[in-house]
Structures are given as C-alpha cells and as structure tokens.
C-alpha cells in the first residue's frame, strides 16, 4: 500500500515537472517561432529534416542565453534578416538557405560543442557566429581541424588570421588607431585608459599606449574592471587624480560596466567638455540601454552608425525595423553580421558551389559589396577594408558623425606595436605566404 501510494505520488510530481517545462517551452518557443513566421511564412525553422537538394544549410552560433545574450541576440536578428532577404530574392545558386541556430549560452565550451555539432551533425557549409574573442578562440581549433568556415562579425583585438575565419568587423587599425589620431588632433594629449578585464581591452590599450607615446601624447593611467562589475568609484577617483585638469578617457569597457561608468562619471562631474571619452564598445543599442541623457556629448568609433547616409543603409534600417519592430536600432556588429551573409553569398555564387569550401574561400577574395556602411572589399587576409567613422552621441540616442576617413582603410590583423608581430602580415591567396609571414 505504502509503496503504491509513493509511486503514484512520484508519477504525479514527475508529470508535473514534465508538464511545467512543456508549458514554459511552448510559451517561450511560441515567441521565437512566431516572430520568424510572422514575417517570413516560408522560413525554415531550426530543426529541418535533411539538407535536401534545394536547400543550403548554414549555421548561426551565438549566445541566446546567459550574459552575452544582451549583445548577440540582435546579431542573430540581423543574420536572419539577411538570409530571409536572400531567400525572398531567389536564394543562392537557386537554392534556399536554411539557417540552423545554435545557442552558445555565453559559455566558451558550449560554443565549441555546438560548432562541432553544426559541422559534424548538421553538415552546414558555413557558420556565422561568435561575439567574444574567447568564444572565437575556442571554436577556432574546431574550424581549423575540420577545415571549415566561420564568419565573425565583431570588431576585435587582431593578432589572428585564420584560414578558416572571415572577419567582417574591424581590425584594431580600422577602429582604434584612427580614433586615437583624431583625439590627439582635436581633444588633447593626456589619456586615461579604462577597460574591462579581458583580452580585447588589454590589447587595445597596448596599441593605444604605443601610439600615443609615438605621437607625443601621454597615457597617465589605466585600470580594468572585471566583467559585470558596476562599482566604478575607485576608477573615477583614479581618473581625477591622473587628469586633474581634464583629459581624454579612452574607454574599452564592455557590457554592464559601461552603464555604471557613464552614470557615475556624470554624477562625479566629469563632463564631456572637460573629459571627453572615446568608446569602442558602445553602439546604438548600448546607448539606448545606458540612456542618452548620460552619454550625450561623448564619442564612439565605429565603421557603421545607424545615421550613415547611404541608400543601402536606409534600406537596411527600414527592412530591419519592419521585421523586428519600429523601436529597434541597428549597430555596427549587426551590420557586419548582415554583410557577412551577403559576402558569403557572393562568394558562393562566384565559386558556383557552396560545399567546396576551398573554392568558396578563393572566390571570396576581392568581393566588393555596397554595404550600408559604404563599399567594403574582402581582402586576401580575410578581413575587409572599411571606412572608419567617429560619432558623437546626440540627445536622441543616435550618433552625429563628426569624422570619417576619406576612403576605406585596409585591415592590418597583426599588431604592428607589439615586437613579436611587428612587420608581419597575412595573405591566404598566396599559398607561400599564409596566415603569418614577414612582410617585405
């Protein structure tokens, strides 16, 4: 009797568990599936049966949960928009693109696991994905071992040039170096460097320090915040001590810390007229999350702003808002992800195949595209040449573009300020040169 009773109880609770998760699944899933189906009735969902003859499978690998979901979700949106547009325009080589979305869960191990799964199980022909350098570094061996292809859409610290990765975001010389030059010319020569405690800010700051020293400026202090830390009072004290009469703050903070930093910067009276700051991780979305009230007058360096005036950009912004809602904004990584899909499509079409990755790769070199940010060209070093812009935050949360380079800047992946990599370059179109060779 006792036994029966307990077993029954177990059944009840067991089914309760299962049921609850089903309910939650149904509700949350509703949202994702319906947002896709609402605007794109024929778009394939994540779990298609087989590749089939008339579809081409690509993978999308970003964090949909965890800390990085904040940034990566909208990149996925942009990639799906591009895929949908291509499909609506007839697909690639007459085939529809089927996107398989995997969640990296802000966990580098998971990224690696999912990358393996996309390549081995789902047999995708290309993967669009990653945001943090750590996630890219973790999937890199997978892509190299399997000689596969990753399109990486975020500005990063350089020092890498893999045969199996195409980088559509900025290399350091396409974002940081021009902005430092501009600051030195227009805003002063005394710098304070603030960054999150990980590889990108540290590398960026190595470059900045070398560059500032070379051009006659001074770096009077630097400090790093652990990711997610929001207690910035000590840093503000340090800035005041280092720059008592004003100066330039170069900000490579990432994520939540930015919000705290700018809110408290204003509270402490370090206003942009005396302490202008240049950020490289703050784009339109971040401005919205921080509040334009706090950021007005500060600067950011990117290749793309939503306010860029090109016909391509107007189309892009409009299409994005139509699909995801009128209040959404676009930003640089989203644009880079968007054009990554188009560049891949052009390469596939030139190569005449999606499966032969070597051919696709070779076809990619030299592809140009009239992107929302202007004309971009895929270089043999797997990075793209792009225009560099400096924007000032307006009170409506958009950027006033105050400076842009006259022409597209060529990407330099290897850091020319670090002794070990000085003078090195990368060229995958020439088998004798490869990922890292000593340039003449």
């Amino acid at each position, binding site marked *: 009797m*006792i*036994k029966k009773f*307990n*077993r029954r*109880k*177990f059944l009840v*609770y067991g089914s309760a*568990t299962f049921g*609850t*998760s089903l309910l*939650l*699944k149904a509700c*949350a*899933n509703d949202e*994702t599936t319906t947002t896709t189906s609402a605007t794109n009735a024929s778009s394939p969902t994540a*779990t298609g049966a087989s590749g089939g003859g008339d579809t081409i499978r690509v993978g999308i690998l970003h964090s*949909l*949960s965890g800390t990085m979901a904040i940034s990566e979700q909208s990149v996925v949106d942009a990639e799906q928009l591009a895929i949908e547009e291509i499909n609506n325009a007839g697909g690639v080589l007459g085939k529809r693109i089927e996107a398989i*979305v*995997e*969640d990296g*869960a802000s*966990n*580098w*191990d*998971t990224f*690696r*696991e999912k990358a*393996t*799964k996309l390549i*081995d*199980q789902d047999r995708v022909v290309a993967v669009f994905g990653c945001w*943090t*350098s*750590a996630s890219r*570094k*973790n999937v*890199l*061996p*997978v892509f190299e*071992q399997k000689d596969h292809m990753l399109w990486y859409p975020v500005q990063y610290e350089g*020092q890498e040039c893999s045969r199996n990765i195409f980088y559509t975001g900025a290399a350091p010389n396409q974002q940081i170096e021009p902005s430092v030059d501009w600051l030195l010319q227009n805003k002063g020569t005394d710098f304070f460097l603030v960054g999150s*405690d*990980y*590889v990108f800010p*540290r*590398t960026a700051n*190595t470059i900045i320090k070398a560059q500032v020293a070379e051009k006659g400026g001074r770096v009077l202090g630097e400090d*790093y915040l*652990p*990711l997610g830390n929001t207690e910035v009072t000590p840093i503000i004290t340090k800035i005041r001590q280092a720059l008592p009469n004003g100066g330039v703050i170069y900000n490579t903070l990432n994520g939540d810390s930015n919000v705290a930093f700018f809110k408290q910067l204003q509270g402490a009276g370090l206003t942009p007229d005396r302490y202008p700051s240049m950020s490289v991780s703050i784009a339109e979305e971040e401005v919205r999350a921080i509040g334009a009230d706090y950021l007005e007058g500060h600067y950011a360096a990117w290749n793309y702003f939503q306010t860029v005036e090109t016909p391509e950009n107007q189309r892009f912004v409009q299409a994005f808002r139509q699909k995801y809602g009128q209040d959404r904004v676009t930003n640089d990584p989203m644009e880079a992800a968007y054009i990554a899909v188009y560049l891949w499509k052009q390469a596939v079409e030139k190569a005449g195949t999606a499966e032969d990755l070597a051919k696709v790769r070779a076809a990619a070199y030299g592809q140009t595209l009239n992107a929302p940010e202007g004309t971009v060209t895929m270089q043999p070093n797997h990075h793209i040449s792009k225009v560099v812009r400096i924007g000032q935050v307006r009170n409506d949360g958009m950027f006033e573009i105050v400076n842009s380079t006259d022409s597209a800047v060529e990407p330099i992946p290897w*850091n020319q300020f*670090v*002794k*070990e*990599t000085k003078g090195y370059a990368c060229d995958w179109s020439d088998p004798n040169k490869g990922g890292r060779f000593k340039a003449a």
Partner: protein
Amino acid sequence: MDAVSRIGARGKRQAFWIEAAIVGAIALFLIIVMPVVLSNFRLNLLGRFLSLAIVALGIDLIWGYTGLLSLGHGIFFALGGYAISMHIKLEDADGGLPDFMSLYGGTELPWFWEPFYSFPFATFAVVTIPALLAGVLGYLVFRNRIKGVYFSILTQAATIVFFNFFNGQQKLFNGTNGLTNFQTLLGASVNTQSTQFVFYSLTIILLVGAYALCRWLTSGRFGRLLMAIRDDESRVRFSGYNPTEFKVLVFAVSGALAGIAGAMYTLQSGSVSPRLMDVAFSIEMVIWVAIGGRGTLVGAILGALLVNYARSFLSEQFAEIWLFFQGALFLIVVTVLPDGIVGWLKSQGIQSLRGRKQAFTYPSLEEDPEIQQERQELETKSSE
C-alpha cells in the same frame, strides 16, 4: 547499508565481488560498445560527461556524506584543467613561449610555468594543486567551525575571486580566453580520433578508480564517521574525534577528484578558461548530485550524466527553455525528491525488502505498537 551489514562477513565479500563485476562490466561496455554505437561527436560528449561524473563523485563525498555544501568545486575543476593545459601549451611551444604570451607582449616564461615542462609533474599537479588548495582553504574555514550556509557562501566567494584572478592575468594564463588550441601531448596529436579514444577510455578507468576510492572511503568506519559529522558534528567532537581533520581530508580528496575531472574534461573539450570557475557552473555541479541522489555514489554519476544529457538535448532543441528547466530542476529536487532518483528508488526498494524480511527476522518488531507508531510518524513526516 544496513542490509549489507546484516548479511555478515561472507555475504559482504560476495556482495563486494558482485559489485566489482557489475562496475567492470559497465566500464567494459562503455569502452568497447559505445565507440561502435555512437558518432565521434556523441562519443566525445559522453566522455566529457563521464569526466563530469568524477567531480560529481567528489561533491557527493563532501556534500552527500559529510554534509558540507561546496559551491566552489569549479575552482578545483579548472585548476586541474589548467595544470594539464599548461603542460600541453609548453610542449606545443617547443621550447619557446606559449603562443598567447608572445602575441600579447609577454617576453619571458613566468617562473611557475617552468615545472610544467615535465609531464609527470603536470599530472602530479592535476591532483595535488587542487587538493592542496582545498586542504588549506578547508583548514582555514573548518578550524573555526564555520559550516553550513557560511561555508557555502565562502566557497562561492572564493569562486568569484579565483575567476577574477585568472580572468585578469592576461600574461600568465591568457585571461578570459583561457588556454586553447592544443596540439600534442607526449608527442601524440591530441585531436586525432585515436588519442581522443585513449582519453575517453582513461576517463572511464579514472571514473572507476574514483568510484572505488569513494566506495572505500564511505564504507567502513571512516564513512560512518563522515555521516556522524554530517548529522551531529559537536557530538562527534565530544566522542573524542576531531572533525576538522576529517573534513579537511575529505575536502582535499574531493578537490583532487575535481582536479582529475577537470584535466580529463579539458583534454576532451580542447580548452580551459576561467569560465569553468563561473559561479553558476559550480552550483550546477551540486544539482547533478542532488538529482541523482546524494549520499549514493551511483546517484552522483547518474545525475551528472542525466542532467548534462538533458542540457545538451534541451539547449539543442529550445535554447530559452534550458534556464527555466534548470531552475525547475533545482526546485523540484529539493521539494519533491530530496533524496534524488537513486535515493527514491532505494527507499522504495528497501521498504519492500524490509516488509518481507522483517516477517521472519524481527516478528516482535512488527507487532510492537511503539514501532508502528514511530513508523507512522516517520511516514507522515516524509510525506509532508
């Protein structure tokens, strides 16, 4: 447990051999059959989950048996991973600097990297560094009789501190990115199928070894003392035992197991990063044990496998659900299934066993009204 002691010495020996045979059979099955059945991707997944089962055993030892909830096993896990990775990075660098150091402006090898040139030292470090750290940390905490929730929070804080430390040391440990892109270990390429199979088999052997170790520790007088410490520590003290020594030892053993697990996991996942010291990951380890059934070794292993497979499956199908599901798991396991799956099965099993056996072993017990009443009380209590 009580069933075992009742059978007597000969029965005990017999039970031991039966158990050994079952464990051996399962291990052989995993080593021989699984590689045939599973694709490489799935086999690698299984291998990693099995190495997570080793750390689950460690947590079961410290939590299930000794009653100390550690939320910091990620530290030991990651340290084990770092130890073996440092060796591989040095081997790959072939006398030079590991690649990340030179790329980010490092010029000379930090002194503590030197010993990791030696493979024996690296394997030794996989076990001893986590064990030592656990021992020291444990000693500092236990000697002041800090326990319960305090201990849990302190271990959690330690996790954050270690995360910050490893995360911030770009030149020493490659910061956030961690150590990745492994090439060779002892001259063999780590990424080939055959090497990975060796790692997989080694994981199983180590898991069996860990199981045997925990089995030995938890049966016999030592194991009973651990339970006594869990149930009433100050009573143990008044009986003349010093609980601190025992707790430190168990925590160190548990840390060592986590270190081994971390090393095997790292070898199969191909990277180690401060993410392994994430607060959430360490708490997740606890839930594996809780789901499987704390205080039972099989439960710990089973729980680790089950939860990780559920995660892998669910996050493949519906990414957003996983957190809801994981949260629900935590809630359900503490409210409805406090003894976990194995504990539940066991209590059911033993109840039926006792029901039959008592009929002839202790007829008087069945009739004793006091016993009846006690039992009723126990049942109402447990069903509350």
